[in-house]
């Protein structure tokens, strides 16, 4: 039992700040990964991949609009999803470091997508029973799209891992490069604790077992060695990013920054 000494109005406001922060984490993951996927438009190894990546980017941008739209609504300061996306600097972005990793080659792009999709699927499944009906509704819609993303990325990781000597080497390299960016998806901080206490979202750490089992099964079928326990980078969800995010935003936000207030 603790005695509450704070101003009673402070709690809802603290809760609201945490909720907005958490919604930005969801929206920013979709926005930045969607941006990375869209960089392939017209440049991928096969026509079918151009179509699939554009489609995936489109899904993610759509999901970002829902999450950031809800963040704007909960925040209640009259901002729009576009203003949140286009007028924050890197330090205010809340995406995981994994999604801002550069495309490098199609192997790293697919591996990044797979590692993220496996997490995305876990969290969306849980969010369908969120205490906030708006969150549950977005999750239910997104889950249908992400189920397809995961099916596709897992299938390609398997086929390329268990493919030619070169495709296997590239997927191995991709796994080694990206695995150290997955740990952050499962760390719990004060925002996560507040969301879990309110029944809005699961604790990230509770998603680890499900993710592990999906990833291990796919890597095994792909004949790729699981990297095991390795050092994990952190920072994205509290706004400490890699150098890459600044360039993504410089490109993405160019028109909004160069022509403030213009309607497009």
């Amino acid at each position: 039992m603790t005695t509450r000494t704070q101003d009673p109005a402070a709690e809802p406001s603290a809760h609201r700040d945490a909720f907005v922060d958490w919604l930005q984490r969801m929206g920013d993951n979709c926005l930045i990964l969607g941006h990375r996927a869209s960089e392939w438009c017209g440049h991928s190894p096969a026509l079918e991949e151009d179509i699939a990546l554009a489609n995936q980017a489109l899904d993610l941008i759509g999901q970002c609009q829902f999450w950031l739209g809800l963040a704007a609504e909960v925040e209640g300061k009259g901002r729009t999803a576009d203003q949140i996306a286009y007028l924050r600097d890197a330090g205010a972005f809340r995406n995981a470091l994994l999604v801002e990793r550069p495309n490098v080659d199609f192997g790293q792009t697919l591996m990044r997508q797979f590692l993220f999709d496996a997490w995305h699927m876990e969290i969306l499944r849980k969010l369908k029973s969120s205490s906030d009906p708006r969150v549950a509704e977005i999750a239910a819609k997104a889950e249908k799209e992400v189920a397809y993303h995961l099916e596709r990325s897992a299938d390609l990781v398997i086929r390329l891992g268990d493919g030619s000597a070169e495709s296997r080497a590239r997927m191995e390299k991709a796994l080694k490069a990206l695995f150290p960016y997955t740990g952050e998806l499962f760390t719990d901080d004060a925002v996560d604790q507040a969301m879990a206490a309110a029944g809005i979202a699961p604790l990230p750490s509770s998603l680890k077992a499900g993710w592990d089992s999906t990833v291990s099964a796919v890597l095994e079928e792909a004949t790729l060695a699981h990297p095991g326990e390795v050092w994990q980078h952190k920072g994205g969800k509290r706004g400490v990013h890699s150098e890459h995010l600044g360039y993504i935003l410089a490109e993405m936000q160019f028109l909004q920054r160069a022509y403030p207030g213009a309607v497009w």
Partner: protein
Amino acid sequence: MYAQLVQSEGGKSRAEMTPREIAFQERIDRGEKIEPKEWMPEGYRKTLIRQMGQHAHSEIVGQLPEGNWITRAPTLERKAILLAKVQDEAGHGLYLYSAAETLGVSRDELMEMLHSGKMKYSSIFNYPTLTWADMGAVGWLVDGAAIMNQVPLQRTSYGPYSRAMIRICKEESFHQRQGYDIMMKMCAGTPEQKAMAQDALNRFWYPSLMMFGPSDKDSVHSAQSMAWKIKMNTNDELRQKFVDQTVPQAKYLGLTVPDENLRWNEEKGGHDFSEPDWAEFFEVIAGNGPCNAERLGARVKAWDDGAWFRDGLMAHAGKQEERRAALRLAAE
């Protein structure tokens, strides 16, 4: 039009035709569709491969000038619309390559011909997209010109091509509307946005007119293609129709078409207008346009860099086949 200067094979007079060729021409004249397994003159098949291949390549290369702005789209909504549009274009490429494959040429062979420069794509995609207004101008003018050509092609004589065009036209009219919508927003926006819109029209007007190909008097391949209903209208007919449709749209936007000679001609019931610079057109077709090297270079790089990916998938398919064979053997 996405197929310019398509060289037509054949051009025989009726007296020179075999009875089989006469019967074929009569089927076309009656409006029958020719289907993949049916007999067709070799010239008809080759001309169609050239035209459909060029059309498919145009869709694929056409992803690049618009893809150039996806990461810089000014709002989430505009980004989503542009992504959907570029995705549609890749899809159009896929329908058209598939339709061309029914004529006995593989997609890989067509790609090889694009990469080696043996086959062309529309000259329009060799012009750069310099501002966001270009996304509007490309949708409005380039897709507008493409629709002008593609609507009649829904009635073309080759069944798979005709059916592909029916699907493509539905999506293209959506593309043109979204392009015009961008132009409306820009023209109703700040003075800087309006200036961007005018600049985009200035740069894309003549290249759009070039999309229909050279003037009829210089177009040597049209007659045979028209007899075969591979080409439904002449270049000049379509260009005139495009100008007549587009001029009032520009006026509605408050933009000026960059042509001092543009005026309504009551007698012909259409606009008089200046011809584009055909010397520039032939240079662009020959590979000397502002973006030829970048566009083709990007496609070749995508193909070469992706070789390991395609080979990896083939290797996996081979392994799976071996495993199934081993299982069958073990079961026997």
